[in-house]
């Protein structure tokens, strides 16, 4: 199996815009499966609604594209029905921590053995660029024309709230680190949540003054630093893994 075997090439071109961040994450996930030599029959991908939610349909494995926000409960049902399957959720921030936020909190509490990859572009991209729970304070969007009044959701705090947890922050720029994190997450026997810092050029970037996706990508390079051995939690500008395997802390 090579990474090509995990992708439905006849479905290309994807729905994603030129300069979109999702494609790179999509392809790098397939690289990880190639390295894991994961048989197609042992893998299921579940997506919700949104740009990232279309990923499930482009992977050439059994996949489910569900309603908005419900990728995690569908994934949990699949995993609990068949422990043999590796279940990966691939969806966006609006889907997973906005409308689906309750499921994120509770599936992580039940520590169901799935891997959640959350593409965080800080915006509702597919619907045109509305404020997301992850949108930076003060940022103008279609639904916050005078700037967002609220602080972005602290995903890390939620994901690490339980005694046993696996939270990682990766980015679409540092893709080697993304790959190693995914491998670690998929081997983690429990709920593993990976927040991938991404961007949306078409429905937010241009309004913010970026000329193309490349500029947004390099902004991520500037803004985020890797922290390979964090003491406690990650700083907001750090990428890395925060995990705890001992329930008695």
């Amino acid at each position: 199996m090579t990474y090509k075997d995990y992708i439905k090439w006849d479905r290309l071109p994807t729905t994603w815009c030129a300069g979109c961040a999702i494609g790179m994450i999509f392809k790098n996930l397939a690289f990880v499966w190639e390295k894991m030599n994961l048989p197609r029959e042992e893998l299921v991908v579940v997506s919700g609604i949104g740009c990232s939610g279309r990923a499930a349909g482009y992977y050439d494995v059994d996949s489910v594209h569900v309603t908005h926000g419900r990728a995690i409960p569908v994934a949990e049902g699949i995993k609990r029905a068949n422990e043999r399957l590796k279940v990966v959720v691939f969806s966006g921030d609006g889907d997973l921590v906005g409308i689906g936020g309750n499921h994120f909190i509770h599936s992580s509490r039940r520590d169901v053995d799935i891997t959640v990859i959350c593409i965080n572009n800080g915006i509702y991209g597919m619907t045109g660029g509305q404020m997301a729970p992850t949108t930076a304070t003060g940022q103008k969007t279609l639904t916050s024309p005078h700037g967002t009044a609220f602080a972005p959701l602290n995903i890390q705090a939620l994901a690490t709230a339980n005694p046993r947890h696996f939270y990682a922050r990766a980015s679409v720029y540092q893709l080697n680190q993304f790959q190693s994190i995914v491998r670690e997450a998929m081997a983690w026997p429990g709920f593993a949540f990976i927040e991938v810092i991404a961007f949306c050029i078409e429905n937010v970037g241009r309004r913010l003054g970026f000329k193309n996706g490349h500029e947004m990508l390099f902004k991520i390079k500037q803004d985020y630093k890797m922290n390979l051995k964090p003491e406690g939690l990650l700083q907001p500008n750090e990428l890395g893994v925060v995990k705890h395997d001992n329930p008695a802390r």
Partner: protein
Amino acid sequence: MKGLVMGNEAIALGALKAGLGFFAAYPITPASEIMHFLAAHEREIAFVHAEDEIASIHMAIGASLAGRKAMTSTSGPGMSLKQEGIGLGHMLEVPLVVVNVMRVGPSTGMPTLPSQGDVLQAAHGSHGDYRPIVLYPGSVVECYRYTIEAFNAAEESLSPVVLLSDGFLSHLSETVDLDAVEVPLKARTLAPLGQGRRHFTGLLAKEGIPKTKDTAYYREWYAHVKEKMRRTAQNYRFSDLHRHPKSDTLLIAYGITSRVILPLRKEYSIFRPVTLFPVLEEELRAAAEGHNRVVVIEMNDGQYRGEVQRVLRREVLGVSILGGEIQLAEVRERLYDL
């Protein structure tokens, strides 16, 4: 099993008999006992007390896709939340059983007095066109039998089947012999996840490829789904008719209402549908024949009566017993007043 059994327990036992492999739900009166009984079996089936109604139906969909017969149960407020999953189930073509133990609504309404107010919701609650199978038993032993039939119908139709009950019936305890109920079981029909390369999507899709702008394909697809549901429903036409030789009035009632009006058999003809949807049109027409008056008695404001009127194409009278209490004396009085 022989002995005193409650309606909700009979539903749980019927599900286990049918081969239930996954159950997820959220507590809600008057449906919770289904959960309690199945929780006791959590070592034999996968059981999740979910964070909400939406999660529980979506988990059941996931589990069904992954190869297990799945069920979720709730009451009205939860049924409103589950509509999203019911629509998804119809689009993905996933076998599933959804139990709604009805109580008085809208909203929190009158917790937790019995009602039959969710009859039309069971058929049309989710957005878009779909043609669900809806069963509504009328006794404890029927709760058991028709739960099994609901699983069979779900497998055969590859769709979420709604099993209705009400707070009265679900909390009714009767002495029953469930072992005497014989219903052949349908095996799993959907190949489980893990085959390699299938895509299930809530979008209109042809062999896993979205066809979201293809009107002609939508029409073709819908005709296929409609025909599939019609064909399957042919095997699940459950009803009974008591013809009174001297009555020129046909009473129609279902669920707990049919149970309460049982003594009226001495005066009237009574038609009792168990399959509420698709509406049993032929049976209704045959039952109405020879009767001048048709009266639907139900614990809602004429929901099924509208369906009967549509089928018979003539005026159909109704006795609506609202507000969570039903007494034979009131029904009788209201019938005389018609």
